[in-house]
């Protein structure tokens, strides 16, 4: 079974003009999260979708999704966690308890705020997770990456040709990520900024899947403005 896990746990505190969590802001005719869920809903490679969102938003999220795609048992809306790790843990727990997890189960995790993800990216994630156990969606870095230990001076400038920017989806063999995640120390868990790191710190390989520059994450008001301009005929009015 292949399960899409849409992470919509962010509080939205980074949006300047509204308290509404950013995934619920309108893009075109519907909320950002609905566009994202639709991409997973129509992909025949995805068997089930879990949407993980703040508790107060569970019912509204269900309503929005139902309004767009009708009543369906393909989508479950559950509570996310405080952190990204907690949300991942909730997704894995839900799979274990309600969907069943075996050696073939794949989890395709994706940010609710990346509605421009394409059919190919999702399909290639599923393929890579099945074949390699883990994959990350990336695009080559167009900017030079600069590393600084103290935030004041450059420590290292890595070779740009070897640098990529991480996007989502990130997809995994569910049993493998659950097992690796549980084996991490509390300190290791705290150091996780990215689910793929669960694999890399344990020396496990993560396959790269080619993303798209336009698979943007709508994090800041600027991103929303860009997204609205990208979507034909829709212009940001703020």
């Amino acid at each position, binding site marked *: 079974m292949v399960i899409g896990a849409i992470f919509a746990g962010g509080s939205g505190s980074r949006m300047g003009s509204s308290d509404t969590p950013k995934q619920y802001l309108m893009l075109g005719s519907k909320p950002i999260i609905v566009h994202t869920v*639709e991409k997973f809903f129509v992909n*025949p490679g995805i068997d089930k979708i879990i949407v993980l969102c703040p508790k107060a938003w569970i019912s509204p999220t269900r309503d929005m999704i139902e309004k767009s795609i009708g009543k369906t048992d393909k989508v479950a809306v559950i509570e996310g966690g405080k952190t990204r790790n907690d949300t991942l843990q909730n997704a894995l727990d839900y799979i274990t308890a309600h969907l069943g997890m075996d050696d073939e189960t794949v989890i395709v995790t994706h940010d609710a705020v990346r509605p*421009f993800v394409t059919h190919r990216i999702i399909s290639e994630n599923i393929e890579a997770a099945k074949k390699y156990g883990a994959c990350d969606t990336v695009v080559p870095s167009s900017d030079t990456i600069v590393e600084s230990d103290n935030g004041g001076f450059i420590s290292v400038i890595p070779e740009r040709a070897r640098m990529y920017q991480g996007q989502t989806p990130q997809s995994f063999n569910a049993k493998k990520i659950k097992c690796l995640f549980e084996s991490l120390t509390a300190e290791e868990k705290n150091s996780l900024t990215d689910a793929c790191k669960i694999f890399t710190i344990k020396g496990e390989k993560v396959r790269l899947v080619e993303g798209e520059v336009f698979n943007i994450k709508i994090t800041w008001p600027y991103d929303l403005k860009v997204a609205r301009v990208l979507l034909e005929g829709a212009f940001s009015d703020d």
Partner: protein
Amino acid sequence: MINAVYQLVSPRMIDVTYKEFELKADTVIVRPLRLAICKADQRYYQGLRSAETMRAKLPMALIHECVGSVVYDADGAFQPGETVIPIPNTPSTEDEVIAENYRRSSMFMSSGHDGFLQDCIFTRADRLVRLPADVNFDVAAFTELVSVAVHAVSRFDKLAHSRRGTIGVWGDGNFGFILSLLLRYLYPESEIYIFGTVDEKLSYFTFAHRTINVGAAGMAVRVDHAFECVGGAGSEIAIDNIIDLIEPEGTIALLGVAENQVGLNTRMVLEKGLRLFGSSRSGKADFEETMNIYREFEDIPRYLENLVGDVVEVRSIGDIHKAFELDIRRNFGKTILKWEK
């Protein structure tokens, strides 16, 4: 749902845009597998249409020849994974007399409306036909072009008188190849003659009874009926040649697109009592008939494999350009885009 659409914005410039589509009950979503470039696409790509036309039609996603895989159908008429041919013509009105491809109200993809260069194609169940299991995808990609030939033959069948001993096809390009191949199988009693200008290309028409280079002196041949598949600047010469060689009361099918007006020897048209008809594009019935022909005559899709030219894997806009530029240099065969974008 947001869909990425790859539009021609000006000659040789393709950009991605994003359009919102509804998951409505009558919507079927198809993921392109292979696409084929048509001459009409090239005219837009290279900016060979009039400035007025370019202004009116662009930006627009090109390509109307495609084979795809069903991704989603809310109504369940198609199952995910089924291989289908999307029909680029979308009628918006009913008409018992005028065929859907001639109605002014019909929309045609990649001619005023976005074509198939998209992440996913949003269409209707009645605009899809299922592909027989054993047809090569590269051949299936240009099924639309085959359906245009099927449409022309069906019109010919209704309009031409019954003496069909020899049928001439003017044009040694892709369309001439497809059309004459169909005639060879659909009219086994007829002799099929191909008239062209390039000996090498004429040598590809191995199934024809005769191939004739129109530049050679003393063409002592006559045909009962003729199909003109030349188009462009050569249309006038070809039609003139047909009028010379066709028997009285013969029927001439005009299929080649010419940008400029074409002079016509009306004296001989009148004197011989000729019948000229135009044929363009195709409709659902022609696509269905094409599938029947693929099933009934297994040799036809096999012959069509010879038309498959460059197959370009497309993972970037640069790859789309590569396919179009390779196609420009090709003098025979179809350029196929393997859609991995």
